[in-house]
């Protein structure tokens, strides 16, 4: 931690980290300690595990509106980044990324590493056709914080490849594409110090990279699956997939939250800190490559 930093930042960093770790650990612990003997019966009765039940109990109307807003904001931000406009604080700024050989190579290799890592655990299915246990999700904030947009797009493409290889590719993968993009994009935009040498950067990492990124990605994909599913208030007569709402909000979404949060909380920050000097030295750090337009 830097000595110039006020001690309050370190305290905030520690408090945020503890809160986020507690949420991630509670979700994981309750998932692992779920009674698997009576569990299937509970599942069939429409009851999830405690953490998932909390999500589901918020109600379908709540998720339709809140999830819809979160989905819409995520989609707009994704399209803006594609169009060369980004968020700086609360302002919109035009930027220029050349998408030259370095950016394309970064995108491709991030996709290869992430896609391969996800596929390696593709057999550990949680909801057939939709999600599985994914330790490689720890890579997403690293790619976002170090490589910026190429890393975020690499994450999205990598998820798409893993979906195809593991037999999960469907219209739901559209949500997975943008959702995984957001998982890397959120830390890219909101973790300001990629060296991770200040309490503030750790607080930003745990708040944005672990908590908000994980929740946003999960709700984004969850809402998409709900919206195109048979219980959708809009597409019920034309469903594009067949997941029931209780499985989407009581299982899929909370599972994606804890899967993302637990691996990023314990792995991503030290790896980012260790890799930043290399990314900087080899000219791959996004901050040295992007140009803002006035």
């Amino acid at each position: 931690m830097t000595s110039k930093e006020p001690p309050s930042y370190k305290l905030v960093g520690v408090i945020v980290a503890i809160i986020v770790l507690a949420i991630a650990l509670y979700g994981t612990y309750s998932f692992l300690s779920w009674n698997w003997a009576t569990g299937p019966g509970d599942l069939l009765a429409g009851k999830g595990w405690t953490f998932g039940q909390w999500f589901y109990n918020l109600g379908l109307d709540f998720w339709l509106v809140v999830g819809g807003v979160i989905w819409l904001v995520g989609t707009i931000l994704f399209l803006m980044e594609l169009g060369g406009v980004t968020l700086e604080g609360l302002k919109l700024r035009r930027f220029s990324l050349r998408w030259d050989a370095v950016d394309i190579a970064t995108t491709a290799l991030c996709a290869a590493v992430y896609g391969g890592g996800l596929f390696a655990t593709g057999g550990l299915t949680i909801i057939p056709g939709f999600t599985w246990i994914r330790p490689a999700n720890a890579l997403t904030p690293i790619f976002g914080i170090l490589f910026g947009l190429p890393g975020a797009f690499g994450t999205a493409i990598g998820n798409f490849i893993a979906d195809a290889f593991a037999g999960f590719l469907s219209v739901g993968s559209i949500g997975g594409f943008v959702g995984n993009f957001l998982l890397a994009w959120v830390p890219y935009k909101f973790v300001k110090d990629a060296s991770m040498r200040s309490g503030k950067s750790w607080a930003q990492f745990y708040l944005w990279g672990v908590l908000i990124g994980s929740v946003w990605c999960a709700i984004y994909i969850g809402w998409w699956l709900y919206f195109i599913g048979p219980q959708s208030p809009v597409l019920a007569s034309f469903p594009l997939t067949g997941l029931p709402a209780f499985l989407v909000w009581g299982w899929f979404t909370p599972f994606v939250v804890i899967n993302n949060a637990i691996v990023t909380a314990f792995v991503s920050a030290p790896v980012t800190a260790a890799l930043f000097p290399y990314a900087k030295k080899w000219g791959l750090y996004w901050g040295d490559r992007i140009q803002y337009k006035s």
Partner: protein
Amino acid sequence: MGFELGLYVEGNSFMHKLDPRVKLLFAFSLIFLPAFYRDPRINGSIYGAFLLLAVLSRVGIKRILTVLSISAVIFFMTFLIWATSPLVSGGRTLFVLPLPWGGAINYTEQGVLYALNNVFLILIPVSGMFLYVSVTTPYEIVQSFQLLHLPFKIGFAFSTALRFLPVMFNDTKQIMEAQMSRGLDLQSGNILQRIRGYIPIFIPLLVKMMKGVQELSLSLETRCFGVNPQRSFVKEARFKMLDYAAAAIMILAIAFSIYAKTVGIGQSLTWA
């Protein structure tokens, strides 16, 4: 499993010979077609037609068995969940299934039909996309991007990622073996200790990846990557009679499905 060509299975069937745009149309048709019907018999027929197509595509028994095994898992889980949904419990009881952990599930006529229909809503798109990537090379996928006027660089990044997947796999394996020989233990300890065990694997892997980025970008730059925004292809894609026929069949199938939805064909959840 060789990943250099993604999931592509080499072959000479009519599906392999189709224009990449027609193959994409085929994949999209299989995503949307089952959504037009609420009758598992019709969606079951679509899935049957798909299986026939998979056999005729000659992608090999191993690939078809993979599709069937994925289908079986999806079928079992989705059926079990939907058939007991309180949303659809009308009609007479067809059978009662005792559960090994206690209790029993009452399967009603409407519940079973509704469950089967939703099974096909998941099965058909997932299996369809699996067949699409089995008969389409990464080269053709990149070509599709160009032909549909989408940014070619996205397609290029996608195909390069597929190309590097085996390289990264081997690198990961080597790093894991090297770290394990130094005492890294990923098999024991609680979940947090196991998760933290990935740190000494990720760091050298990502350093190697960054070196790979430098080498690949240098190689691309020496070939003047991106100088000409219009990419040319050695093998030009042209529509042939087979492509027109296949595209016409799929367009007709979609048009009929829209008509069926409008007039109410295949929308009834009863056996009659």
